[in-house]
Every structure is written in structure tokens, then in C-alpha cells.
């Protein structure tokens, strides 16, 4: 059953359709990959879904209710959480306070937030830095911190924008593990990335965008074999045999 359903979403930037009649479903409990080359409109879709942009037309439904054009904080209250490519943490509060604040913001009691924050700090291996100001953390640590802030109260859907970009492999692993674990516990993810190995590794289904349009959607492997998708990534392909598969790139776990 679909948790988040997107119908004919369209938004224009100065005449250009950045997102053009995009529709897809996000099923409860799945990890859906939103892929596509740079500038294909992935992040714009995320901005639309997380309330930082109002669509020109189209609808977004979460469960049974229409959430089109709701403000970011309303959506967050309803459990649609978003993570940024450029991390957004509260730089002049300690990491621990960041988690605590995120909990309070989601309506969790102070004592309970405290408890969960402590748990998350361990899970995310932030222990050593938990009392440093978030501004002093490394990029990777901030991403982990954002994970924590999203999951201090389990979201209905977590939208991750390029979570693995420019992150130390070890951190990547911690994140990936975190995502798998939460997924196993039934969390739903919308994962924006152009890092194929991770997508293949984590997602069951994927939606591929190019130039603001959805060019393919469905089972991840099917999508990645789709000609349009391959062209979108590799430009024109030599017709005939040996269509290069995007899956052949090695997955992060084999990296040193």
C-alpha cells in the first residue's frame, strides 16, 4: 500500500519546467531510490515533498490526507522528515543538544528525548564528540547527527538527499548500516542519490528522472537496464550488443 503518492507534480523556474508532471508512489516500508543525472530535478522534487517549494500544479498525498504545499515544519510534525545534502545542524549547540532539540521539536517529552538521544549517540558512534558544538564536528559526523535528528522520533518517511556524498567510507558504512537497520524495523525511505552502487545495494525500487521528467520507474534492476536511463547517464550508446550495465560498478563494501 502506498504511503506517499505523488500525482503530476509540476514546478517552473523562470519558464523552465524544473519538475514536469512527475508522478510516483512510495510504498510503506520500502527504500525507494530517486535517481538521475545531475540537474535532473531530484532535489527539486525533494524540496516539493518537504515543503520548501510549492508546486505549480499536482498533488501529494501521505496516507489518506493531502499534504500538497504544507509548510516544512507541518510536514515534519506529520512525520515527513528531510535531510539535506549540505548538512543543517544547530552549530552553536552541542551535538547532544541538537538531538534533544530535534526530539522536543517532534513533540517528544524532555525525559524521553534525553533517553533516545543517549541511545542514538551510541548507535551513531558520536559518543566522543557528543558534547562538542555541532559546528565543530566533521562533515561525516554532522551527517550522522542529522540521521539522529531525523530518527529521534521514527519518521513516517525519511527523505535523504545525497547522504553519502563526500563522506568517509567508514562513515558511509555506519550510515548504510543505520538505514538497513531502520528499514528492517519498518521505516520508509526516499533516497536521492546518483551513487549507483549504494542505490543498488539499498533500494528495491527506483524512480529515474531526467530533465524534470520521470523516464523510468519500478524494480531497481529493471530501471537500471532501461535504455533511456542508460542514455541519460552515458549519453548516446553504441547501438547493438553489450549494453553496459550500470550495475557492474563495485559496491561500497568491497572498497578498502
Amino acid at each position, binding site marked *: 500500500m502506498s504511503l506517499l503518492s505523488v500525482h503530476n507534480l509540476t514546478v517552473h523556474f523562470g519558464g523552465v519546467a524544473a519538475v514536469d508532471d512527475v508522478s510516483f508512489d512510495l510504498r510503506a516500508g520500502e527504500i525507494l531510490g530517486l535517481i538521475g543525472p545531475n540537474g535532473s530535478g531530484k532535489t527539486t522534487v525533494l524540496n516539493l515533498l518537504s515543503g520548501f517549494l510549492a508546486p505549480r500544479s499536482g498533488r501529494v498525498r501521505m496516507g489518506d490526507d493531502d499534504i500538497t504545499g504544507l509548510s516544512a*515544519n507541518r510536514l515534519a510534525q506529520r512525520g515527513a522528515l528531510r535531510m539535506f545534502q549540505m548538512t543543517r545542524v544547530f552549530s552553536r549547540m*552541542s551535538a547532544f543538544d541538537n538531538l534533544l532539540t530535534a526530539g*522536543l*521539536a517532534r513533540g517528544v517529552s524532555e525525559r524521553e528525548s534525553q533517553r533516545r538521544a543517549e541511545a542514538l549517540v551510541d548507535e551513531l558512534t558520536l559518543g566522543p*564528540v557528543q558534547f562538542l558544538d555541532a559546528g565543530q564536528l566533521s562533515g561525516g559526523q554532522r551527517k550522522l547527527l542529522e540521521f539522529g535528528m531525523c530518527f529521534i522520533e521514527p519518521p513516517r518517511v525519511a527523505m535523504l538527499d545525497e547522504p553519502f556524498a563526500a563522506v568517509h567510507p567508514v562513515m558511509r558504512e555506519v550510515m548504510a548500516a543505520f538505514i538497513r537497520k531502520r528499514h528492517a524495523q519498518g521505516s520508509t525511505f526516499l533516497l536521492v542519490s546518483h551513487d549507483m552502487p549504494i542505490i543498488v545495494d539499498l533500494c528495491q525500487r527506483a524512480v529515474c528522472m531526467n530533465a524534470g521528467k520521470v523516464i523510468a520507474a519500478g524494480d531497481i534492476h529493471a530501471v537500471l537496464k532501461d535504455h533511456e536511463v542508460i542514455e541519460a547517464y552515458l549519453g548516446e550508446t553504441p547501438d547493438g550488443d553489450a549494453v553496459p550495465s550500470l550495475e557492474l560498478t563495485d559496491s561500497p563494501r568491497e572498497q578498502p
Partner: protein
Amino acid sequence: MTARRQLWSDRLRFDMGAALAICAALALVPLFVSGPYALGIILVSIYFAIIALGWNLLAGYTGQFSLAPAAFAMIGGYTTALLGHYLHVPLALGIPAAIVSAALFGWVLGKLVLNLSGPYLSLTTLAFAEIARVVIGNSHEFTRGDQGMHVATLTQSRIGYYYIFLGTLVAVLVLLYGLLRGRLGRFMMAVRDDPVGASSRGIDVVRIKMIAFCVSCALCGLAGSLYGTFSQLVSPELGLLQQTGLVLSMVVIGGMSSLTGALLGALLVYLSSEWLRGFGDVQIIVFALLVILFARYLPGGLWGLAARLLQRGRA
């Protein structure tokens, strides 16, 4: 390496403790100092301290760099004065009325600058402050213009007034402490550090900003109103830009985003500016130099310095 536990609640408690210690010290001053003049000076510096704390809540904790604190003190003072003069409202109502009206104007200003940031916000608040002052200063029929208005007084006893101000200061500190240690305080700081991040975590940024504006301006209004009853006079000069500059330098010298910082700054800056009278007519020149040097060479202010030293001492 494991940093020592330094959570917001700890920092705030420490901060509040220091602030209350200063208040305790102030409470003892009348035992050694009895001259109405000396008490008067400390009393006026407490007036500035309240404004500084109010402004600090807005600028230091919520990141809304307003340039109108003095104007709101003036608005508060005039509310009490006008009510008393035209409707013979007793101070018991006049002072709360000042708080309310200042809060209301604060709300208006907040709405006005809701979507502005950085210098836009600063200059719009500055414009607002100047409008308020020009209108009050030029409405002779209504406000008696630059001559100012006479205000009733709570008590003729200087000691009495001293403790009224000190009591108010403590009350304000307690209020701010309660506000800052809870959700609101954290949300304010979240808005300051990253408005976008804050809203994406589920914080209603607009609401938080408005609350910050109302509370901050209300405090300034309260200060202005009390002060009017003390000096039995309110004049447009209460809202001069220079007054705002004074408040800002107090907070910056004392230390932004800190209760003790604002309090300490207000006391030291005002007391020293009085003490500088010894320098005769170069008083203001010396004062200006001090302000520049402090701001330039003491980032984080006195409290920042003190805190850092104390940390080192502990660790």
C-alpha cells in the same frame, strides 16, 4: 578524546548562577553605599541591564538583530505617561499597560521583518525606531514634544526604588531562565543557528520569531516604564539611536547570548561611563575609545573571557 559534559542546560545553569550572584552582590550594595546618587547610578544601570537582557533574547538567542530596543523602552515609558496624563490611570495599571503595548508594537515589528534577515532586518528595525521617535517627538499637542511628560512615581525613597529595580531584574532573569531552559529557548537557538534546518525538524520558525519579538520588546517596555516612574519624566531622547548603541555595546562588551554577559556589560559600561565624569568634558571621548577597544580585542565579551578562564580552571 572525550569532552567534558557541557550541555545547554549546564551552561545555562552556570550562567544563571553567575547572574544571580551578581544580583545578590547588588542587593548588598546599599549596606555600604547610601548616597542617593551612587544608588541612582546602579539603578539606572539596572534599567539598561533589563533592556540589554531583552535585546539579548532577540539578537543573542534568536538571531534577530534588531536596532530598536531603546525605541521600545520609549514606547513603554510613554504608554504609562500618556495613560496617566490623559486617563489618570494609576501606575498599578499603567506599568502592565506599558508591557502590553510594547509587546503589541513588538508584534507589529516582528510581522514587518518576519521574512527579512541580516542588514535588511537591522535597518528596518532602525527605521521603525526612528519613526517612533520622530512621531512622538513631533506630536506636541499629544506628547508635549521634546519637553517630555511628567510621570507619577511609585515611591520617593531611593532605597525603595533600588530594590524595586533589583527585584524586577531578578524576576526578568528568572523568566528568561525558565523560557530558555525549556522548549522555547532551544527552538529560539535553533532558529538562530539555522532557520531552514529548524523548520525541517518541525519547529514553527514564524511562531518562535514572533514570541521572541513580543517578549523582548515587552521587557524593554517594562524597563522604560519603570524608569519613567523613577525619573518622573519621559522624553523622546529615551529612544535615541545612541541609546540603542549604548545597549548594544553593553551586550557585546559583556558577552552575547548570555544572561550574565548582558547584566555584567550593562553594569560595567554604565558605571564606568559615570565614573569617567572624572575626566571632565573628554568623558565621552574616553568612553567611545573604550567601547571600540573592547569590541575589537575582546570577542565573546567579558563573560566569554570569564567563562573560558573558569572552564580552564575546572578542566
